[in-house]
């Protein structure tokens, strides 16, 4: 464990170094604004940097506390995400108990199963048991109006916000030969390659993006996506020492996670537009809601977990 802890501290310090540089850059831009005025672009940038500080500190603290800390952090993230999703989902008064069960029973049980490491149960608990139970709870109130819409959106919220997010801490429960007690590094690896791929997708999309992936839905371009995925793969290869993978395999896993994350973010954008909102909430200053922040990790985590399980786990 000590080797993993040392590496986590190293990564945290590296992230702090990067954030200090970005903060100083922002302060420099601020100092060039005439006194008594403020530049909205600089202020938005600084708000985002402050939010990143908070997220990096929370994430680092959770990783250093081990499995329990990571499970608690992602359980609270899942709660905030589910709150955002159900705020806009289609529901009626008849679904009240089903939704309360989702928040207060299914979500905590799912994360408790992860903490206990019961993989046989946590991989089927929501797709099978919650899937069958919640429509039964709703139907007992006897309101058939748009029933399929209601139960579908309820189940979708659980899959996206609880099932998918819970696969991030689940990475720590995988039994990988020669990788004992280092599962926490796999989480850091996943989150870093996905977020870096996303940032570079936006950067390259603005510089050289021409062909829209989904015109009318999102400014994402094929050029940006390809560059973002290649960058994620390169970063993945450079960070292979954190993983149980070979450099080539680390590159491939990073690329797969990045691709699924980018399309996931597109899917959640479509849901937002259908519901007529720009951001899921205002939880993270300057960034929107938790779902806006995690949309890519949400789609990447289950696939990353299952491929690792399939190919590397014993």
């Amino acid at each position, binding site marked *: 464990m000590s080797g993993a802890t040392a590496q986590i501290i190293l990564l945290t310090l590296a992230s702090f170094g990067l954030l200090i540089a970005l903060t100083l850059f922002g302060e420099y831009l601020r100092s060039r604004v005439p006194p008594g005025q403020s530049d909205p672009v600089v202020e938005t940038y600084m708000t985002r940097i402050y939010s990143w500080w908070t997220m990096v500190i929370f994430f680092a603290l959770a990783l250093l506390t081990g499995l329990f800390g990571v499970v608690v952090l992602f359980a609270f993230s899942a*709660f*905030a995400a589910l*709150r*955002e999703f*159900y*705020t806009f989902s289609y*529901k009626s*008064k008849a679904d*009240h*108990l089903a*939704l*309360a069960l989702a*928040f*207060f029973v299914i979500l905590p049980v799912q994360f408790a199963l992860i903490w206990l490491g019961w993989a046989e149960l946590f991989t089927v608990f929501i797709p099978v048991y919650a899937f069958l139970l919640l429509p039964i709870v709703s139907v007992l109130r006897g309101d058939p109006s748009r029933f399929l819409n209601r139960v579908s959106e309820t189940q979708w919220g659980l899959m996206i916000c609880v099932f998918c997010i819970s696969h991030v801490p689940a990475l720590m429960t995988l039994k990988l030969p020669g990788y004992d007690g280092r599962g926490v590094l796999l989480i850091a690896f996943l989150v870093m390659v996905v977020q870096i791929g996303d940032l570079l997708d936006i950067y390259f999309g603005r510089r050289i993006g021409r062909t829209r992936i989904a015109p009318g839905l999102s400014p994402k371009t094929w050029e940006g996506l390809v560059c973002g995925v290649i960058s994620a793969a390169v970063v993945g290869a450079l960070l292979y020492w954190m993983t149980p993978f070979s450099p080539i395999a680390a590159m491939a896993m990073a690329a797969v996670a990045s691709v699924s994350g980018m399309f996931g973010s597109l899917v959640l954008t479509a849901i937002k537009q259908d*519901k*007529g909102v720009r951001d899921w*909430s*205002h*939880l993270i200053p300057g960034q929107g809601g938790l779902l806006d922040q995690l949309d890519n990790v949400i789609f990447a985590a289950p696939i990353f977990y299952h491929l690792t399980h399939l190919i590397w786990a014993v």
Partner: protein
Amino acid sequence: MTESTNMEIAISHPEKPDLLPPPKPPGAMRRLAAEITGQAITVFARAITAVRADWRGIEPVARPRVYFANHTSNADMPMIWSVLPPPLRRVTRPVAAADYWLKTPLRAFAGGEVFRAVLIDRRPEARTQDPMALILQAIDEGSSLIIFPEGNRNMTKDPLLPFKAGLYNIGSSRPQIDLVPTWIANLNSIMPKGEVIPLPLICTVIFGAPIHVEDGESKDAFLTRAAESLAALAPERRAE
């Protein structure tokens, strides 16, 4: 528990059934308890519903105002109260029904000392003070008010019930006061009537542009305009 039940029986009176006497000025300990309870309510509201203010038509500055809001749930008033910045919250008092808030000692503490409500007796035959006089007195003392002009919780599918005359009477007696339409979004799904467990959905309180009673404007015309200004703040729902 036993003690409070006894108290209720002791003060029950044939002419004024079920009501406690109006609260007396509290001592230092009770003021502290009220302060702490108020903070706890605010923290709870934020933790569960992530309640957020959207100052769409007016800035959050400390001027005497009357916030008039839609009423779908008993949690409406604590939600508005929670999103006000603390300096505004300290001078803002909800106008509330005495028959609800003076029913038990706990409610009397919450209504009278935590929220410092202007308590209105809704029974014309039994009351000793004119409600409008109490409301205007609170305004003249420099308080802002929260009122629910629909009078009752709205259980219908319509966005608003017809407004009662109180808002017009306040607006015409004190024309300089800003009447601020205040829409509380989503509380209806968080805590529908008859449910016990609140759902942790996101609640938004939207403050619109203030309105005033114009010269020669009739009561009905003003109340219609007020209801329209409030309903216009409701987030658009997709067509069914």
